[in-house]
């Protein structure tokens, strides 16, 4: 059972009177095997939420816990997929994926087998010995996802993973991630500013306000998706055409726009 919990989290950047409040009263739970996306305007602190779970940053008040344990530092139980991939340029695809397994002291035979499986899963078999700079952006992000998945982490943290990709590649990756998260469900926290992406991928979508970021509302997508059987479609554009999809998308857009207007006034 893997879960993520934010309890009354407050986060400031800087100290003393100059401190900027970035997160206010964040309460959110991502349940076991649940896929939750956080959407919000840029600079609202959604990436900070993810970085708190990853252990890259610490809360000022409240707690962030994973499976009941308070997060204090980064670790392989919480694998991160970064927007800018963050692959090691001097390591081949295989070596990039292998590092986490070696750190776990996994036996050589097991490593070979797990790497082979994840390479196959992500359609990377023919690129195992390539270096990251020889691959396209989409391929590089596949490697980063493989590097996270191979560790079989309790939770998967994805920080705008497709934000640096071109539109076509992005769609392919979104479809792949849906396929992946339906076949091998994981507890996922997914950060994005793309509303369609959030609706398409997530079980629930949390909408954040402008700074200081608060969670304004949480929408249940899964109930609608299952009732309308979105998964019968392979292609994202077919899902995006459904009334139920459009309705949810519009609802989120309106919620985000209120934020924007409130800010302008």
């Amino acid at each position, binding site marked *: 059972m893997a879960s993520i919990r934010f309890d009354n989290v407050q986060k400031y950047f800087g100290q003393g009177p100059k401190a900027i409040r970035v997160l206010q009263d964040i309460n959110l739970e991502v349940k076991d095997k649940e896929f939750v996306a956080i959407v919000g305007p840029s600079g609202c602190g959604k990436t900070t939420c993810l970085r708190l779970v*990853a*252990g*890259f940053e610490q809360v000022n008040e409240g707690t962030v816990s994973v499976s009941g344990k308070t997060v204090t*530092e*980064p*670790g*392989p139980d*919480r*694998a*991160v997929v*970064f927007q*800018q991939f*963050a*692959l*090691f*340029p*001097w*390591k081949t695809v295989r070596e990039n994926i292998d*590092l*986490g397994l*070696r*750190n*776990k002291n996994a036996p050589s035979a097991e490593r070979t087998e797990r790497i082979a499986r994840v390479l196959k899963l992500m359609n990377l078999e023919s690129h195992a010995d390539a*270096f990251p*700079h*020889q691959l396209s952006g989409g391929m590089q992000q596949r490697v980063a996802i493989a*590097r996270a998945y191979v*560790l079989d982490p309790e939770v998967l943290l994805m920080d705008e993973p497709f934000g640096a990709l071109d539109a076509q590649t992005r769609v392919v990756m979104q479809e792949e991630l849906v396929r992946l998260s339906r076949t091998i469900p994981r507890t996922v926290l997914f950060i994005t500013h793309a509303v369609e992406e959030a609706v398409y991928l997530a079980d629930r979508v949390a909408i954040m306000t402008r700074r200081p970021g608060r969670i304004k509302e949480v929408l249940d997508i899964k109930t609608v998706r299952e009732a309308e059987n979105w998964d019968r479609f392979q292609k994202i554009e077919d899902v995006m055409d459904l009334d139920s999809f459009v309705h949810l998308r519009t609802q989120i857009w309106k919620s985000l726009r209120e934020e924007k207007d409130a800010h302008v006034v």
Partner: protein
Amino acid sequence: MDRELSVREQIAYGALGLVSLIGFWSLLSVTGLVPRQFLPAPWEMMERFIVLLSTKFAGFTLPQHLWSSFQRYAYGVLLAALIGIPLGLMMGWFRWLDDIVTPMFDGLRFIAPIAWVPFAALWFGTGIGGPIMIIFAGAFPPCLINAYRGAKFVEPRLIEAARMLGTGHFRMITEILLPASVPSIVSGLRVSAGLGWQSLVGAELIVASAGVGFMMVQAQGVVSTTTVMAGMLAIGLVGMLIDVLLRQGEAVIRRKRGLE
């Protein structure tokens, strides 16, 4: 910078600089503005250089002197790299080590290598240790500084990625910081190689048996300025050769890494 120059222009300008230098120098010695014995003409230097290639002076031919200089030099630079690079990387990772070493290092690094000559002589006599120590003093700071800077300026995302993968201290230094710093370390090595080679003559002031610096000091004793100059030429040529080779190495590494 100003506009790009074609290769032909670059060569032409380079030649212009060299020809001016040699012309001015020839003029000074031919006209007798500077006495010949104080400043030999360029062709006299060349002649002496060629003679020294096969004729012994101060016990050895010029190539033999160069070889014994090069050995000391290689030991000194190697030692500087072997200590400086790991130490610099570790300082870039462990803050406490940084805090211990940095003040000490900043206090010592502005002392010119040649200032260590008296101590090198006292501690090592005329053995091989003295010159190595002087060359080390010249070559060590860039090794350390560049490894340190390389480690400090690794893209933070890569460190975060490594940490979330559960990477421990040792692997972090050897598999993340070291490879990420390679371009910086190699440019540091190039500077080190240059400074080490420059410190050579100073180092060999205290060596009694062989070496280019030793040859030049002996030549000074008998006022053979052409020999001193031939030594300078040899030092310059070998220095350039080392730099060219290391530049090539640097280019190869950058290409492999996809930086170019």
